[in-house]
C-alpha cells in the first residue's frame, strides 16, 4: 500500500497548480487523482481569459499574483501556453455599471493595477471594428490577457511529474478515510492510499467530495456555454467583456474567436449539452457589437460548468473540523486565471502554515458563517 504525504483530488488547473507548487517547495511525496483525463473538466472548457480587473479586492490580489506567475510559466515549466497580454476591455452598458466600474478602478489602482477609463469615443478610435452604440464607459487593463488552458494544465502536470509527483488519471476517488476527525487515507478505483493531507480541488464535484468528510460546501455547478469560430487573420488582441451586457469574446492565437455568455435561467447541476437558443442569443448580441462576425462561421459549440460560490469568490483554506483536509474550490468561472496564485498560496499554507505572497485567510469557508460577505460583481 503506497503512502503519500498529500493527495490532491482533481487534476484540473487548480489541482495541478497545487501539485506543482508543492513539489517546487520541496514536497514531492504527492499524488494527484483525476477521475477522467487531464483537462476534461472546467479547465478544458473555459474561455482562457486572465483578468485582474475584479470588484473584490481578494480576487484582484490573487489575479495580480497569478499574472506574475503566468508571465514566468514557460520558464518555470518549459511549456509555452500561448500567453498573450493583449488586455481586457470591460464595457459598461448602463449608468449603474459605469458607476461600479469607476469604483472598481479606484480600488484596483490602490492595489497597484495598471488600468484606465475610456469614453465610448476613445473606444471607437482605438478599436474601429467595435460598434460602440450603447456603451456608457469602458475600462482597459493592458496587463490582462489570455492563454491556452489545456497547455497550462499539461504544463503543470508534466512539471509536477518531472519533480516526482505521481499523477493518476482515469482514477476516481470513492471515499476519504477519516478517523477521529483526522484524514488517514483515500479509497480510489486504483486502490487505497494512506496520506496525511487531502486537498479538494474537484471543481464541479467539490460538493460531493466535501460530503466524503462530512463538510457541506455551499458550491453549486451551473452550465455555461461557449463556442468558437473559424480562424481569421490576427487583429483582435484583447478580451472584450461586459457584465450587464453579458458576454465575453477573444481571438485565440490560432485566429479563432471564442465567446460565451451566462444564462440567468440555467438550472443548477453538471450539464454539458448545448442549446441552439444560446447560438441565437449570441448571434443577435455579438454581431451587433462586432459587425465583422456577420460573415464568420461558428464551427464548434460546447459547455462546461462554473462551480459557483455564494459570493462568486473562491473558497480556499484548510478545515478546522477535519484535520488534514484542505480545499480550493468554488472558483465561479475564474479558476483558470487564479490557479497559479491559488496553487502557490495553498501549497505554502499546507507546508509552512501560511501563504507568503497573497493573504488568503479571508477566502476560508468560515466567512459564510457570518452571512455578510462581499459579492464579486464582475462575473459573466
Amino acid at each position, binding site marked *: 500500500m503506497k503512502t503519500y504525504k498529500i493527495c490532491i483530488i482533481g487534476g484540473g488547473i487548480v489541482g495541478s497548480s497545487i501539485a506543482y507548487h508543492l513539489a517546487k517547495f520541496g514536497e514531492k511525496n504527492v499524488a494527484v487523482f483525476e477521475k477522467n483525463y487531464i483537462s476534461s473538466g472546467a479547465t478544458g472548457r473555459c474561455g482562457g481569459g486572465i483578468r485582474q480587473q475584479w470588484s473584490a479586492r481578494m480576487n484582484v490580489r490573487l489575479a495580480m499574483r497569478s499574472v506574475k506567475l503566468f508571465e514566468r510559466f514557460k520558464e518555470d515549466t518549459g511549456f509555452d501556453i500561448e500567453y498573450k497580454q493583449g488586455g481586457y476591455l470591460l464595457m459598461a452598458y448602463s449608468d449603474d455599471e459605469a458607476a461600479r466600474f469607476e469604483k472598481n478602478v479606484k480600488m484596483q489602482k490602490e492595489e497597484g493595477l495598471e488600468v484606465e477609463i475610456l469614453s465610448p469615443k476613445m473606444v471607437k478610435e482605438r478599436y474601429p471594428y467595435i460598434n460602440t452604440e450603447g456603451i456608457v464607459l469602458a475600462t482597459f487593463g493592458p496587463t490582462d490577457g489570455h492563454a491556452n488552458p*489545456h497547455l497550462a494544465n499539461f504544463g503543470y502536470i508534466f512539471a509536477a511529474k518531472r519533480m516526482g509527483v505521481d499523477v493518476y488519471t482515469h482514477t476516481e476517488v470513492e471515499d476519504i478515510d477519516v478517523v477521529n476527525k483526522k484524514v488517514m487515507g483515500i479509497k480510489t478505483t486504483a486502490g487505497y492510499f494512506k496520506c496525511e493531507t487531502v486537498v479538494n480541488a474537484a471543481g464541479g464535484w467539490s460538493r460531493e467530495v466535501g460530503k466524503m468528510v462530512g463538510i457541506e460546501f455551499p458550491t453549486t455547478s451551473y452550465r455555461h456555454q461557449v463556442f468558437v469560430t473559424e480562424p481569421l487573420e490576427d487583429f483582435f488582441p484583447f478580451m472584450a467583456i461586459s457584465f450587464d451586457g453579458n458576454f465575453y469574446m477573444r481571438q485565440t492565437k490560432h485566429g479563432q474567436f471564442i465567446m460565451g455568455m451566462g444564462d440567468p435561467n440555467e438550472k443548477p447541476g453538471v450539464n454539458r449539452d*448545448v442549446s441552439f437558443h444560446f447560438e441565437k442569443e449570441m448571434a443577435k448580441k455579438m454581431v451587433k457589437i462586432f459587425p465583422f462576425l456577420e460573415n464568420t462561421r461558428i*464551427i464548434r459549440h460546447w459547455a462546461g460548468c462554473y462551480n459557483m460560490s455564494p459570493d462568486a469568490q473562491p473558497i480556499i483554506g484548510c478545515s478546522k473540523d477535519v484535520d488534514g483536509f484542505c480545499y480550493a474550490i468554488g472558483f465561479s468561472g475564474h479558476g483558470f486565471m487564479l490557479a497559479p496564485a491559488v496553487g502557490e498560496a495553498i501549497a505554502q499554507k499546507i507546508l509552512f502554515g501560511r501563504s507568503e505572497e497573497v493573504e488568503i485567510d479571508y477566502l476560508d469557508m468560515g466567512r459564510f458563517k457570518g452571512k455578510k460577505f462581499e459579492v464579486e460583481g464582475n462575473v459573466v
Partner: protein
Amino acid sequence: MERAAVKPQLLVVGGGPAGLTGAIAAAENGVDVLIVDEGLTLGGQLVKQTHKFFGHQGFFASKRGFEIADILKKKVKNLGVSVMLQTTLVGFYDDYAVAYDRENNKTIEIDYDYVLLATGASERFLVFKNNMLPGVYGAGAVQTLMNQYGVLPGEDFLIVGAGNIGLIVAYQIMQAGGNVRAIVEISNKVGGYEVHVNKVKRMGVPILLRHTIVEAIGKERVKGAVIAQVDENYRIIEETKREIVVDTICLAVGLQPSVELANQLKTELVYIPELGGYVPKRDENMRTTVENVFVAGDLAAIEEATSAMAEGYIAGYTIAQDITKKDLSKEIEKYKEELADLRRGPFGEKIRKGLKKMGIIMPEGGYRRERQEDFGPVGKLRAVMECHQNIPCNPCEAVCPTDAIDMGGNINGIPHINYEKCVGCAMCVMKCPGLAIFMVQEFDEYSVVGIPYEFEPLPEKGQKVILMDRDGKEVGEGVVHKIMKNKKEKTHVVFVAMERGLEKTVRHFRLPTPEEEEIVCRCEEVTKKDVERAIEMGFTDFEELRRYLRIGMGPCGGRTCRLLAAGIMARKLGKSIEEISPMTLRPPSIPLPFSAILRGDEK
C-alpha cells in the same frame, strides 16, 4: 569585338578552350589571329561549367569552368586577337573560306595562311519511343540553359547516360534546385569518374546500371518516362519496364566530333571509336594530313577541357613556329608532357588505345596506385580522403599549407595524407574538384564530420539535419555543429555532429523538407511525427492528445484526422482502436454563419 581582318595569318574556327589557347599561343608570338565563333560569347563549353576542373594545380585545376573562360577571354583580348561572334564558318570552298555573320545577316570571305579547327563536338541523339517530345533535351543543352541563362527547364529529371557529362549535369541540376529522379546507364558500369558518381550517389540519386529509356510519356510535353532493364545484348527485358514521373529527360549518351569542316578541307578522316567516331588523322603536334590545317580539342578526340587546352597550346605554338621560324620547341614540349600526364591513368586508356591506332604512343603508368588504409588517429580533427581512382588531379596536394598530402610523385597518383602534419584546416576539402575529402573528429559522446557543401540554402548552426551514407541512404539525424563558409571557392564545409560511430559512414546530409511531412490534421497542419512525439511525451489519452495538438479543433471538426490520429495512437500504444475514446462530436456539424442564424430568427 572588332570586325574582320579578313586576311589573318591564323584562322581559328571555334572559340572554346582549344581554340582560345591555340589563339593565345600564336598571338603571344606575334601571329595575326582571327577567331570565328558561333556563340554569343567566347568560351565554348567552359562558359556553362560550374564544377571545378581536375588536372595540374598550375594548369587551371580546381578552377570552375566559367572562371577559366574568363581568364582565357581576357588574355585573348589583351593580345589583340580579332574575334567574330555569332558567326559560323560555313565552308571551305575551293576559292575562299566563308563565314556567315548571323547577327548582321551577311557573308564574309576569309583568306588565311593556317587554320586551326577547334569545332568541338555535338551531342548524340538516341532512339526511343516519342523521343521528339518537348522536354527531351540534350544534357549539354540543359546545362546551357541553367548555367548560362539561369533557367531551370523542369523540376524532376531523368538523366540517360552515366558518363561524366550525365553525372555532372545531374549534380548541377540539383544545385539549381531541380530533382534528379534517376540516372540510367545501359552498360554495366558508370563511365564517369568515381568522385562524380559519389557526389550524386550520396545525395540519394539512384544510378540504374543496365537500364535504358524505352519511351517518353506525354502528348505535348514530357510527363514521365518508361525505363527498363536490358540484357547482355542490350535488349530490353519486357517484365522490367516501369514508369517514372519526370518532366524533363536529359540525354547524355555521348558526343561526336564535328568533322564537317575537316572533311571540306580534305583532311583524312579515320574511324576510331575510342576517340569518339570519325576524327581527323593528325600527328603529335596536332597537324592533320593537310600541312596548314591543325585540329585541337573534342574535334580531335572526345576528352576533357584540360586536354583540349593543352592540345590548343601545342597546335598554336607549332603554327607560330612554322610562321615565325622561332624555336618554340620548349613550350611545345611542356604542353606535351602536360598532356601525357593527363592521359597516364586508367581513364586515359581509351585515348591511348585510340591514338595508338594513329601511330601516336602515349605513356601509361608511373603513378601510385595504392590506397591509404589508415583512417587516422581517433580524436584528432583531420582530413579523410575518399579519392580512390587514378585521375590526373592534384589541387589538394598543392593547397595543403603543411604539405601533409602527397600524390606520390605524379598527379595521377592516389593521394595519401600524413596525419602527423595534418592540422585540420579543411583547405583541401574546399579545393577538391571531386568533393572527395571530408573532415572527421571523434569526441567522447559524439562525432563530427565536415562535409563539402555547394547547395542552397546553407543550414544554420544548431539546425537538425538528416544524415545520409555514401549510397544516399538515410541513417539518422544530426545537428549542424559549425559552418566554414568560403565565399571565394563557394565550396563550404558543414560540420555535422552525430552519434559516435556514424563518422565512418555519413558523407552527406539533407535538410528536412515540408513535402515529406505526413499530415494527419489538415486544418491545423499537424504531422504524423507531431502525433507520435506527443504520445512519446506522455499524451497517451486520446482526449489529452487532441487538446495538446489541436487535432479536430479546426473547421473540419475532426473528420479528416480523427480516425487517423486514433489509429496512430492505437499502433503506438499496442491497443485496439476500440479501447481509444472517440472524442465528443459537437454541433454545428458544418460551419454555421452568424448571418444565417440572424436571418433564421427574423420574424
